[in-house]
């Protein structure tokens, strides 16, 4: 709060109707107390069409859903959540490989596991590497168990991603926000009024309601309805303006305990298990040339929440300008890999809460927000560019030399290819595990291991790896079959439902 006289920040208007808007509203209301800061959500037609991006919610320290009280059971009850322990990835030159979520192997003496694996393994394939994760071994047996201390192997704990119905979750977040005094404007957004200096003077809804605020939050998706037209957008290298859409298919059997990601000629296809459905998220076609290859025909192709919507991987370097801050896909569009859209959104919401000014927006806060958010977005999009290059048929090793990849990313690839080195970065958005798994998955097997791994005798390393593989299998055998787990979860949900 401001000590000296001055008008404190008292009102926030969030524009958007999707999960981004209601998550921001609920978190702001929880953290700031709705009685002191008035929070209003102004619906924006169609802004929920990008919610499919939030089908995968990774469990990580910055998980806001846990803060808001959403346990796995609650997500399953309210948002039809299913769970996965890994992703089945396929694409050019790659037969399907199961990549587990989270860490693989155990680091020893400050040296990452993959160096020991590189040193002694006789099968330097992604498939072999990933088998040092209980998640992979469980998936090979179609088994699933949530990560708990009892099924950890020392520091090696598998991870589980929640796959939810984002539209159902959005509805619940809305109820939760209402309960914390968040108000919803009458009617959707019609017009944005700007002052001479480019700041937002107010919003008008179709019903004529005028909304003014100290701070406006743009959660309108890539349409960025509140951001100024001058606001820059940096397209990620190799990306193109594509279409995003979702399809739903009913499954008679229990969902699979993994998601899948396929790189095809047309684009990307991600399949997520969810309740009794499979949800397929497509990112394909070429919007700039009008090419609709791979895009659905008709107006509403199996997606009850909307048509294919435009999506161009990239980010704005200035998500916070004046009195308007863009969150989620209005600030950065990233490939739906490893739960990155959700990580990015949650990071931005948390950052906004931490930086929310006590009074009128100040350059110091906007600068900090923009720097950190842009770093996160670049980090996510570098990972995306690596996958995109691979999908387009560029082997990462070669792409890192022939100029296909931007230099900072190319250097990272070259360093991993040579010696398994992962460049330290300030942004913590993409965990090292994700980078390591991506490199190995896409065929970047280091030429050399870290020499510090030689401090342990080769025989000892071989013995350790053999023992670890055995323990990983043993622990995975204690996981229940996924069908049983799912049935038990459904039974609990039925009991819990009123």
């Amino acid at each position, binding site marked *: *709060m401001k000590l000296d006289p001055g008008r404190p920040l008292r009102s926030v208007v969030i524009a958007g109707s999707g999960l981004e808007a209601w998550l921001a509203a609920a978190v702001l209301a929880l953290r*700031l107390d709705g009685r002191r800061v008035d929070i209003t959500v102004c619906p924006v037609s169609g802004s929920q069409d990008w919610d499919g991006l939030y089908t995968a919610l990774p469990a990580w320290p910055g998980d806001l859903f846990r803060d808001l009280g959403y346990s796995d059971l609650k997500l399953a009850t309210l948002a039809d959540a299913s769970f996965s322990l890994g992703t089945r990835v396929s694409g050019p030159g790659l037969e399907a490989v199961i990549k587990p979520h989270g860490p693989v192997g155990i680091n020893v003496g400050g040296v990452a596991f993959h160096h020991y694996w590189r040193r002694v393994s006789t099968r330097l394939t992604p498939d072999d590497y990933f088998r040092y994760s209980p998640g992979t071994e469980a998936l090979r047996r179609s088994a699933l168990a949530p990560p708990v201390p009892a099924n950890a192997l020392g520091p090696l704990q598998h991870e589980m991603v929640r796959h939810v119905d984002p539209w159902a979750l959005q509805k619940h977040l809305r109820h939760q926000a209402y309960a914390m005094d968040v108000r919803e404007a009458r009617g959707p957004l019609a017009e944005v009024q700007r002052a001479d200096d480019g700041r937002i003077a107010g919003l008008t809804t179709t019903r004529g309601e005028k909304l003014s605020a100290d701070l406006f939050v743009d959660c309108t998706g890539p349409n960025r309805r509140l951001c100024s037209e001058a606001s820059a957008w940096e397209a990620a290298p190799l990306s193109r303006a594509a279409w995003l859409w979702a399809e739903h298919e009913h499954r008679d059997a229990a969902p699979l305990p993994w998601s899948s990601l396929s790189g095809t000629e047309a684009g990307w296809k991600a399949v997520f298990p969810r309740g009794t459905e499979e949800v397929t998220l497509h990112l394909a076609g070429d919007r700039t040339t009008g090419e609709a290859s791979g895009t659905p025909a008709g107006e509403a192709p199996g997606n009850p929440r909307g048509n294919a919507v435009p999506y161009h991987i990239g980010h704005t370097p200035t998500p916070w300008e004046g009195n308007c801050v863009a969150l989620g896909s209005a600030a950065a569009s990233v490939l739906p890999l490893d739960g990155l859209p959700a990580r990015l959104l949650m990071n931005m919401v948390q950052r906004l809460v931490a930086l929310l000014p*006590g009074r009128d927006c100040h350059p*110091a806060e906007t600068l900090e927000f923009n720097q*950190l958010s842009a770093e996160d977005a670049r980090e996510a999009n570098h990972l995306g560019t690596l996958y995109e290059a691979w999908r387009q048929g560029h082997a990462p090793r070669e792409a890192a030399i022939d100029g296909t990849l931007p230099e900072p990313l190319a*250097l990272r690839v070259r360093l991993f290819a*040579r010696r398994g080195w992962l460049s330290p970065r300030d942004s913590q958005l993409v965990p090292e595990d994700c980078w390591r798994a991506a490199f190995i998955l896409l065929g970047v097997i280091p030429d050399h291991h*870290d020499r510090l791994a030689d*401090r342990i005798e080769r025989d000892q390393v071989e013995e350790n790896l053999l023992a670890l593989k055995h323990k990983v299998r043993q622990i995975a055998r204690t996981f229940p079959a996924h069908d049983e787990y799912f049935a038990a979860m459904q039974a609990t949900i039925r009991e819990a439902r009123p």
Partner: protein
Amino acid sequence: MVIIGGGTAGWMTAAALSSTLSRAHIDVHLVESEAIGIVGVGEATLPHLRHFNRIIGIDEAEFMAATRATFKLGIEFVDWGRIGDAYLHPFGAFGIERNGVGFHHLWRKFQHEPATGPIGDYSLPVVAARDARFDIPSEDPRSVASTYGYAYQFDATRYAPFLRAHAEQRSARRTEGRVTAVERDPESGDILAVRLDNDLRIEGDLFVDCSGFRGLLIEEALETGYEEWTDWLPCDRAIAMQCEGVGPLLPYTRASADRAGWRWRIPLQHRVGNGHVFSSAFMDEDQARDRLLATLEGPALTEPRTLRFTTGKRRRMWNHNCVAVGLAGGFLEPLESTSIYLVQAAITNLVELLPPDRQYAAERAEYNRILDNEFLRVRDFLILHYHATTRDDSPFWNHVRTMAIPDSLAEKIEGFRHAGRVAEYHQGLFLEASWLAVYLGQGIVPQAWDQRLENVDEDTLREELRNLRQQVQAAARAMPDHEAFLNNHCARGKAA
């Protein structure tokens, strides 16, 4: 691998390489001349050195006995924000974060209430240091006694010989001689060999230049270039001398601002290290020497010795097949005891990025990126000490108070002044607690605190503050006297 120079940087490099890498992979060869003295910078260190010593297999008690070391809980800054002020930059946290809100916001909210007290009252290393107490931190993360780290104050002239013995036991070779010529490959420009005054020729794949300010290989042979930062850090001289210690053995270093720079005081087991860092543009050497002599607490043990330096760093720390470590790579005044840390950062990254073959352009680019970042972030932190002041008692302070500062620092200061926000980064040396110590210690007080505290009942928050302060005081009282602890600890080292 050929290391040129056998001072602290040279023997730290040799010890690290020979201790962590297999002899089958690397031959460590150090060249030094006994005729060349060592600068012996960095008597005061940061907690990172403990990690370095542990990694290379050094026993702490043995090391402390050999180098006559004392424990260090932080650095006291006297007369920086204004004359008469003093604060301690501790190796540990201030208070405990509250539901994602930094403790300093809570302290700021109640700062003006008499019961709140200074923020240092909520930091165990600050309270313990004031009472000259010390103990090894607890390993229980729930205990307030786990909220700090510690470093050492030691005799740097004894550290290099100690490391030499360690490195030579682990296969590092030493050759006596002074480098007289450097042979370079006419095509690639890489260094092929060095020639010594005793006619020896030493070849290597990779050379580490630890030759000090001169930069025998990195500058004299390779002409790498130097990036000067004297516009922001104008001190360019240091006079060092030793005296007898008087009074209790303090577990912290002191940096007292002076009219044209600052003076250090580093208490060791057997003496006190003293120095005066100053700008020759604002004070001549005689005056600086007189100032130092006048402030010695006990009888002088050595004659004053002057060092000249230019603050900055090499344009490339790794150029061709030569890596500059220590003073050869750059110099930042030891205001925050960073000299040995920067040596350590250079060595650690070199060990981790040591190339497996001669195609190491990628490793070199990455190494330079990381080291540049380290130096830049330390640089900004040091500038803050000079710039964040109200002192107007001398032309020097008027200059540093009003000088233009790098944008990267100006943005950080503004973010803190406006809303108590400490710039967030994960790479680099000084993190939130360090910035907080200097901001608040030198009078940059946030105009606002985190709004999230407004959701909580004020009496509840006051109670939390009171409880925490009591816990810190109690934990400090439970610690033994620093000198007693040290004697007991070093007795074990001597026995070993």
